């Protein structure tokens, strides 16, 4: 079954006097449990495609379906609900909430979901342990290294077991060791929980783990390699 289906997506940005086509008639279908890497040079459209799949951006035209629901015509509130329950985001710049501790950042989404405090506490402890941050739950983001912050961001993205995780350059600010550990964590979650991963990256190590590699250029998909097939 399709986790994501995009039909004829178009998105144009205005930059100065120029119109830049970030998405140019993009069609893509991603099945549940897939591990997809979107690869493109800067400005190739991979972040815009991720944002479109996550319902973060407004498209010029086209249809986006996530978990069987058409999301491009949803209201802001409906999109927020979808993201809250079904989608986990991992950003390049970690994007933790600075005034909350690591544990509170992880619990944030669950708390918004209305998960009871006891259950939240157990889940957050377990996920922090799983990402190798056991015992660091009371630290605020400013007191953690980049790698630790990214692990917290990953823990936050997956703690409520979303069916889809969208990651935008998750290893860009990490050293090679931490990057490797993070990607192994993604791969493990993909294998054990069947979580669908869509990762925008140009990191070769990440691409090595991908089951499917989608290459983009100037807002168009130029290559789509299913490694399982080959």
């Amino acid at each position: 079954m399709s986790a994501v289906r995009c039909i004829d997506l178009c998105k144009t940005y205005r930059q100065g006097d120029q119109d830049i086509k970030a998405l140019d008639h993009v069609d893509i279908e991603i099945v549940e449990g897939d591990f997809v890497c979107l690869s493109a040079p800067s400005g190739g459209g991979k972040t815009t495609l991720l944002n479109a799949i996550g319902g973060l951006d407004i498209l010029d035209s086209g249809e986006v379906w996530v978990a069987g629901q058409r999301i491009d015509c949803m209201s802001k509130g409906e999109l927020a609900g979808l993201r809250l329950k079904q989608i986990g985001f991992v950003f390049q710049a970690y994007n933790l909430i600075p005034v909350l501790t690591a544990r509170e950042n992880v619990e944030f989404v669950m708390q918004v979901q209305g998960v009871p405090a006891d259950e939240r506490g157990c889940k957050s402890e377990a996920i922090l342990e799983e990402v190798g941050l056991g015992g660091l739950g009371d630290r605020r983001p400013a007191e953690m290294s980049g790698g630790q912050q990214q692990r917290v961001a990953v823990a936050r993205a997956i703690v409520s077991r979303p069916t889809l995780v969208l990651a935008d350059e998750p290893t860009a600010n990490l050293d090679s060791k931490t990057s490797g550990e993070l990607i192994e964590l993604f791969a493990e979650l993909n294998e054990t929980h069947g979580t669908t991963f869509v990762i925008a990256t140009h990191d070769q190590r990440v691409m090595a783990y991908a089951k499917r590699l989608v290459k983009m250029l100037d807002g168009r998909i130029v290559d789509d390699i299913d490694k399982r097939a080959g």
Partner: protein
Amino acid sequence: MNITLRLAWRNLWRQPRRTWLTIGAMVFSNAILVFMISLQFGMYELMIDNTLKAFTGHFQVQAPGYKDDTKMRQIVPNAESIATEIREATSLEAVAVRSATFALASSDDRTYGIRVFGVDPANESRVSTIPSLVSDGRFPDNRDAQEIVVGSVLARNLRVGIGDELTILGSGRGGSFAAAVATVAGIFDSGVIDMDRSIAEMPIGFFNDVFYMDDAAHAVVVVTPALALIEDYRATLESVVAGHDGVVLQDWDALQPGLRQAIQADLSGAFFMYGVLVVLVAFSVMNTQLMSVLERTYEFGIVMSLGLTPGRLGRLVILETALMGLAGLLLGALVGGLITTWFTYNGFSFPGMDQMAANFNLPSHFYPQVSLLTLFAGPAFVFIGSIISALYPALRVHWLHPVEAMRLA
């Protein structure tokens, strides 16, 4: 703790100096409001009390219609027995009968139209401050003495002093001619020009003889221990009055409608100034919250992408403002309350106030009146104003789109 509340609280202390400055503005304005409103209410009570204790009293038993048309024939029959009944029913001592008419007062040199009151020397000092305001001579102590007390301005105008004689000419109760010669026993100085210029008082026995009043009077004046207690006595007084035909009970508000109107006019002017203060604080809060929202635009984009609705983020901004407003309200009420309480014991005055206050028969020091209303009414408006001012920053957040927010930042 609820996540929105926790976020709101911690967000406030990201920029502690800015938060404290905003709370400081609220505390300052709230303290001023508490003090000013308390002072104003204290002044009003003093004004009412002084005015009523000077002459009118808290209640009067009168003939129906006498309040609006003070005709000589509109009398309270058996006034003394009604006064006695009231004293017995209420245990109040401050009950006195009183009559009044217009007359011409002539000295050797001049003649003036005046209002003459017949008062009970034994009880008048309990319902009126005029006996205690006699600055020259004395107040009569015999109800049949052929004596008169005049206001200081009237004495000056008539060119009379203690021991001089005044001829009083007027109409008796039945319309007949009434005339008497009275000796000036005292001159009072109330500080209220109108009273000092046009009022004279004579013992009620003498007044009744001159104006053919028999046992009747025009009013039975009642003063309760405090203005705030008048409602406690109303029912008893009404039941006494109900036992007599041809009389009604009037309270101070009906007897002195101008007093309440003057207070309301003063309140309107003051509230306009308070409103300006609230608006200024509200703009300061709006500035703070707008800066705070603009600084966190990227972060708002992030939490929206995590699934927080724009509405919830808007509520977060409102909640942050509410927390600041609550701190400002409580601290402002506390600071204002402490300052005002000090003045309730020590009085408030400023240079030149003695003269101004004397013109209104008021003391030289005002005593603010602290109550829950004066403590929290002003700060509550500042709080509401702050919340309203946070609506625009909250709406800006509400209108944000996640990617747009991250890109704007």
